[in-house]
Each structure stands twice: as C-alpha cells, then as structure tokens.
C-alpha cells in the first residue's frame, strides 16, 4: 500500500502566472510521455517481473513518478492562479477553461485527454524494459522541448530537475535490463519469457 508524504520532491515557487506555459507543460501531466503514463506503466508492469531487483526498480521509479505528477500539477496550479478571463483567452486556454475551469485535468498539449493506450504492458521483461528505456528518453525530449519554449527561471528550475530524473531513470532501467540478461540463458533470451515459460 501507499502512504502520502505532505511535501513536494523538489520545490515549485512561481512568481508570475502564465497561461501559455500551462498550455504546453500540461503535456507532462496527461500526454503520451507524461508522468501519469510513466507511473501507470511502471506500477502495472511490476507484477509479471521475475527478478526482485527489477520489481524493486519498477516500484520505486513508479512511486517517484507519482511525486513528479504532483510537481507538474503544482506547476500548473501556480501558472494558472489568479488569471483573468482576458489572459486565459489571449493564451488560448479558453478551450480548456470552458470544461475544467482552473481544475487540473490530465490532457496532452493538443487537448487529447489521458489514455492508457500510451502505456505498454506486454508481460515480457525484455519488451517491457525496452518500452521503459524509450519512455524515459521520450519524456526527456519533451522536457527539452519545454525548456526551448519557456524563459521564466522559476518554471525552468523544477522542469530541469524533472528532466534530470528522466536520465537517472533511464540508467536504472539500463541496470534492470543488464540484470535480466545476466539471469537469462544467453542462447535464448529473446525466445523465452521467464515469468511464463519454465
């Protein structure tokens, strides 16, 4: 089970609200490579993993992703706090506002709501870990793109932190894949699923 800790993993303190920034950063909440997809991916892949090290990595990275989901929500909350209807309209956030007001609803920047279709769970350790390695790189690219579009240092600082965590997670999933390949018979590790075939 989970226990909630009443703090962010890294501080978010944004002086100036900005509806434009909120419109693009929301992709890391409900987009294909966002933090909600990441947490769902890892926390649901755990069950079919045959090695305890890999279960541990998926549990703890998946839990950290929930903390990142909260950080992105905090960024969106502060970016949209106290905006006037004119500011919302000017930034094009009016199409979001009409449905969700200033609530935090997971969608991609394009407006498409979060979908579990973004998450791959194949029940095969090689397939799933390769999905995870790619997912971390895709999330890193999205943060790179956000950093190309956002100038405010108050927003860039937590985004840079989150970008760095994607790189660390990529390295840890690299460990997981190495442990898996060390455990599998080197002649057949692509032809054999250790959680299923005995």
């Amino acid at each position, binding site marked *: 089970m989970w*226990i909630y800790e009443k703090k962010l993993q890294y501080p978010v303190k944004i002086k100036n609200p900005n509806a434009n920034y909120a419109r693009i950063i929301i992709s890391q909440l409900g987009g294909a490579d966002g933090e909600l997809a990441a947490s769902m991916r890892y926390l649901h892949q755990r069950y079919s993993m045959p090695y305890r090290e890999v*279960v541990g990595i998926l549990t*703890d990275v998946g839990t950290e992703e929930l903390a990142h989901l909260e950080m992105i929500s905090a960024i969106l909350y502060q970016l949209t706090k106290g905006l006037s209807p004119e500011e919302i309209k000017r930034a094009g956030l009016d199409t979001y506002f009409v449905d969700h007001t200033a609530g935090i609803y997971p969608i991609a920047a394009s407006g498409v709501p979060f979908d579990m279709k973004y998450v791959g769970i194949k029940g095969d350790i090689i397939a799933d870990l390769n999905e995870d390695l790619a997912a971390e790189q895709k999330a890193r690219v999205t943060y790179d793109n956000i950093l190309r579009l956002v100038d405010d240092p108050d927003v860039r600082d937590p985004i840079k932190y989150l970008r760095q965590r994607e790189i660390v997670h990529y390295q840890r999933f690299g460990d997981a894949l190495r442990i898996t390949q060390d455990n599998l018979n080197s002649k057949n590790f692509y032809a054999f699923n250790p959680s299923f075939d005995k």
Partner: protein
Amino acid sequence: MNLNERDNLLRKIQAEDFALYETVLFLDGHPHDEAALAFYSAHRDTLEKLKREYTKKYGPLTIYDNGDSKCWHWIDKPWPWEKEAN
C-alpha cells in the same frame, strides 16, 4: 522463520492500520473531534510498535527501514501481491 507468527503480526498491523486510516478519514472532516484524536494517538502508538517489531523480525515495510548495513532487503521476495506474503 515461523510463517504463522509472521502472518499473525501482519494481520495485527493491517487491522491497526485500517482502524487508524478510518480515523484519519473522519478527522479530515472533523479536525477538532477530541475522541477521534485520542483514538488516533493510541492506535498510532500501537501501530508504530507493531511495525518496529515486524521490521526487526521480517525486514523493511518501507524504503526508510532497511536495517542491514550489508544487504538491501527492500527487494526481497515475497512482494505483497504474492500469496506467500499474505
């Protein structure tokens, strides 16, 4: 390891944890209820004691209580969804 003893201790922790959680939900909506606050304090202390005992005998319940300086027991099997863990 005596499995029955572990299972019994885990059941006690789950029961205490549930009682505490019910109280937490109630207190969220009734933050000045003295009876609920007293119940919370008593059960929190009991739960802490039980969790300390469990951790010492059977390993960590959270990432913050791996007691061994030689080995990371956090990843040891069984994980909570396995029958043997319940």
